[in-house]
């Protein structure tokens, strides 16, 4: 192909030469015909044509593919120039790699989590369907199976609607019972998702009816863990206590829905007797829209269906409204804001990196002024020179982007480990889209970095530039470069301020006294199924027996159960009714409800303030349940009255009986450390669920007791598995994981920004020192002291930095408002943070300025002046 291109070029040149020569011949002939002498005629003809080389150049420009050749020539020349200054090239490429790489990494996360549709065929059609019951205070969006079937049958906008719920169970075909997470799914489950089993098949209609064969589909993870990936697993049976289920299918490894750790899926027959009540709130409902239908249309359609059902079944369907939301939105909506803040920070970082490159380019441009002036005098156009300078920068940006992809790949891996709790993290990976994005970044970087220096360099005032480079002038001012340094410092201060605020907020959270003692507490679950709730008495007896057994284990100081983990954020508030006294219609009694065993307060070391704790006694249906309230509840709803002896009830709830208040305990931040403790009512019920959280206070390290406890439980409950064993403190720190991630990332960006700003400051000051060597030499010869020189340059550097700090404080004050939702205990314009940020910046800048300043003072005046 190279040969053909050569050939074509050669043909073109030949043709052009012949044509021009033909033209001159004809003109000569015409001239001769009008009476001129032959050689005069030829000379006239040539003059009339004009400067032949110039005409040829113009013709060459019009050739097809010319601009491509020019681009290629520019790139090659640029590569040669860059090779000649390896130091500059290395610094520039590294800076750009950091800027573009970080940007690409964050973008890959945003792309995978926020932008891309869910990893299912036509993922945009998947919707989450929720119900709201106007009469129930607790907002549960779960739907009864019968209603799901009605919706599926009567709607006109969905391809299919299905539902599921998850529960833990014990698989007993091994030596020790193994805990598995099981998803109960309504019919059409796999149809809605659009994914088929990779081995085996979906459920058959018989298996989806009561009395049919027990079938189960297993997940890829469970398959590999249990059967080692053996394809003959299809057809084997799993045992759950007294009944067994046959494996009919295996799902692909990427199918992690509805939750990441679901091990098996079993059909929940819609015609089972227990599933017939319309008041059930079991299923999370998802549906797949028909092609071309919008969520709004589906919402309206289901609303119409529901009102029909409301006429047919006034109780409870008349009170129920339906809401349809895109499934992706419900999954990722919560983290959207964090991510865009991250993207903003990383773009600031890229901006700083680009500013650095601009400063470097400006410094280098003054060295190439001579070359450019010569090219101008040879007839180059301004555009041509700008193009050539831009091509150099583009090469730098391309190299930076390529290196940046490596940085991005590494950063992605780190991010995935740090952010394992975020939704859809497993879908982050680098692919063509990210590469394209990197390329776009490098183009933007080229324009940002290269345009200004290129245009500035390509000035046609030749005399000025030649005079400058001859060295007759003694000092040069470069205000633009100092402005750039100030800009960098300002941006770095902004990022540093943001990171500082997050850090202080995190520290404040850590210092909050939670009102309970979370150290030396082990938590775990013991498997139990919801089927046990038909016999609440038996269930409570079992749990009480387990608690008592645990308390007698050596090394255990106290044991208890609770429905939810203390300290983990939850927003579970209910309206209560105080049975004694006048009910105040204006002021509702709203409190959090906790279900704990009587030993909870001793285990968590929550102090008793008045009255007594609940008695540990056998469950009896006729005795009024006992409960305890916290100090906040007593002060808010029963101020000045004795709380002990009053009764509380949850109106409309048959599950929770009216309770007699036995005592008042201190306030504890169980609902989340970041929230002020509100009114809490503790029901003394050891088994609100079949598998509550068990809390055990140990004398020694909590995890050291894990094996002992597991074996002891196995002694009394051989068919149940013990799982999720972890110290309570680990759960508490997990709930901060998103805050911690943000803080770590922003801190990292801020540190990088500060170092980049310092590199920029050092480089600019260094260059200034080099350029002003002659001036310094002159002053030293005229009697200035070296100390004065050092101070002067130091102040120059610090001055630019101070300007940048002031601007940065202003920027920080404006932008930290964005963070205000994520801060605890510190305001967005916290003075301490801002002043310490400025102090750090000035300190670092002073260090960066010191080295070139000292170097400036070491100039030998005689040597410098002699070099004139």
């Amino acid at each position, binding site marked *: 192909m190279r040969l053909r291109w050569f050939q074509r070029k050669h043909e073109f040149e030949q*043709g*052009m030469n*012949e*044509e*021009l020569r*033909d*033209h001159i*011949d*004809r*003109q000569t002939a*015409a001239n001769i015909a009008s009476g001129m002498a032959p050689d005069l005629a030829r000379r006239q003809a040539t003059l*009339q*044509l*004009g*400067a032949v080389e*110039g*005409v040829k150049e*113009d*013709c060459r*420009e*019009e*050739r*097809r593919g010319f601009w491509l050749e020019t681009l290629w020539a520019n790139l090659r020349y640029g590569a040669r120039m860059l090779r000649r200054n390896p130091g500059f090239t290395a610094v520039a490429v590294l800076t750009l790699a950091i800027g573009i790489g970080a940007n690409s990494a964050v973008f890959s996360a945003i792309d995978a989590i926020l932008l891309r549709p869910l990893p299912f065929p036509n993922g945009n059609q998947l919707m989450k369907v929720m119900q709201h019951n106007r009469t129930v205070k607790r907002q549960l969006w779960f739907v009864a199976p019968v209603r799901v079937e009605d919706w599926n049958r009567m709607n006109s906008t969905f391809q299919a609607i299905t539902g599921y719920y998850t529960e833990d169970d014990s698989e007993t075909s091994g030596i020790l019972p193994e805990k598995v997470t099981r998803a109960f799914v309504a019919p059409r489950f796999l149809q809605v998702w659009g994914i088929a089993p990779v081995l085996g098949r979906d459920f058959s209609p018989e298996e989806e009816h009561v009395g049919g064969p027990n079938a189960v589909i297993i997940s890829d993870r469970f398959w590999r863990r249990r059967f080692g990936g053996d394809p003959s697993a299809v057809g084997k049976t799993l045992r759950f206590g007294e009944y067994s289920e046959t494996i009919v299918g295996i799902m692909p490894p990427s199918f992690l829905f509805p939750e990441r750790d679901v091990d098996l899926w079993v059909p929940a027959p819609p015609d089972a007797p227990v599933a017939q009540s319309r008041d059930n709130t079991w299923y999370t409902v998802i549906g797949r829209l028909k092609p071309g239908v919008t969520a709004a249309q589906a919402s309206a359609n289901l609303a119409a269906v529901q009102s029909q059902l409301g006429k047919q079944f006034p109780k409870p369907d008349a009170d129920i409204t339906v809401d349809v939301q895109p499934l992706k939105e419900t999954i990722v909506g919560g983290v959207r804001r964090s991510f865009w803040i991250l993207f903003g920070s990383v773009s600031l970082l890229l901006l700083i990196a680009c500013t650095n490159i601009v400063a470097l380019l400006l410094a280098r441009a003054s060295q190439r002024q001579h070359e450019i002036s010569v090219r101008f005098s040879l007839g180059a156009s301004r555009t041509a020179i700008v193009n050539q300078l831009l091509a150099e920068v583009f090469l730098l940006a391309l190299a930076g982007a390529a290196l940046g992809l490596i940085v991005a790949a590494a950063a992605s891996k780190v991010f995935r480990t740090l952010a394992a709790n975020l939704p859809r993290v497993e879908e982050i990976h680098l692919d063509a889209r990210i590469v394209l994005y990197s390329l776009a970044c490098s183009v933007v970087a080229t324009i940002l970095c290269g345009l200004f220096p290129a245009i500035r360099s390509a000035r046609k005032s030749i005399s000025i530039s030649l005079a400058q480079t001859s060295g007759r002038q003694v000092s040069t001012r470069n205000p633009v470069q100092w402005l750039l340094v100030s800009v960098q410092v300002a941006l770095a201060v902004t990022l540093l301020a943001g990171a500082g605020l997050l850090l202080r907020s995190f520290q404040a959270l850590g210092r909050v006294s939670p009102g309970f003692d979370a150290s030396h507490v082990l938590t775990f679950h013991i498997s139990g199924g919801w089927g046990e709730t038909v016999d609440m008495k038996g269930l409570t007896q079992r749990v009480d027996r387990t608690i008592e057994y645990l308390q007698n284990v050596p090394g255990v100081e106290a044991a208890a159960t609770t429905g939810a983990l203390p300290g983990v954020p939850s927003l579970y508030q209910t309206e209560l009714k105080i049975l004694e006294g006048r009910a105040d219609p204006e002021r509702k009694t709203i409190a959090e409800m906790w279900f704990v065993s009587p030993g909870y307060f001793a285990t968590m070391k929550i102090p008793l303030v008045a009255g007594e704790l609940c008695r540990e006694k056998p469950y009896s249906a006729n005795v009024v349940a006992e409960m305890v309230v916290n100090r906040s509840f007593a002060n808010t709803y029963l101020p000045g009255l004795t709380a002990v002896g009053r009764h509380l009830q949850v109106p409309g709830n048959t599950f929770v009986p009216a309770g007699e208040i036995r005592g008042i305990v201190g306030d504890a931040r169980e609902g989340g450390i970041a929230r002020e403790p509100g009114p809490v009512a503790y029901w003394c019920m050891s088994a609100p669920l079949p598998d509550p959280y068990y809390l055990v206070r140990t004398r020694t390290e909590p995890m050291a007791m894990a094996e002992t406890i597991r074996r002891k439980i196995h002694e009394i409950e051989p068919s149940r598995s013990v799982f999720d064993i972890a110290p309570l403190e680990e759960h508490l720190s997990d709930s901060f994981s998103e805050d911690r991630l943000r803080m770590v990332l922003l801190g990292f960006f801020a540190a990088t920004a500060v170092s980049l700003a310092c590199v920029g400051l050092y480089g600019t000051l260094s260059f200034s020192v080099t350029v002003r060597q002659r001036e310094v030499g002159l002053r030293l010869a005229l009697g200035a002291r070296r100390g004065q020189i050092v101070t002067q340059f130091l102040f120059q550097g610090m001055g630019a930095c101070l300007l940048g700090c002031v601007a940065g404080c202003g920027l920080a004050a404006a932008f930290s408002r964005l963070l205000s939702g994520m801060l605890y205990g510190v305001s967005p314009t916290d003075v301490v943070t801002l002043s310490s940020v400025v102090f750090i910046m000035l300190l670092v800048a002073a260090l960066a300025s010191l080295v070139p300043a000292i170097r400036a003072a070491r100039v030998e005046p005689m040597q410098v002046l002699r070099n004139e």
Partner: protein
Amino acid sequence: MHGWGIAQRIQQVSKEVLQVQQGSLYPALYRLERKGLIQAEWGASENNRRAKYYSLTKAGREQLQKELAEWERLSSAVALILQRA
């Protein structure tokens, strides 16, 4: 027609009012050829040397009509204004 001939023709027909800058003629011809409005053929000139002869293409003719119509509109508009004024 070959390049020199085109330059002469323009000068002749406009009665020497339009003097063609001969240096800018050839780049313009090359540009038109690249845009596909004219096509070139190598042929033998009067003294048996190679010469390039240009002719309009179909696209060139269409473009010419368009430009003529534009020119008509523009010149009649200017004439109207000058009449009225």
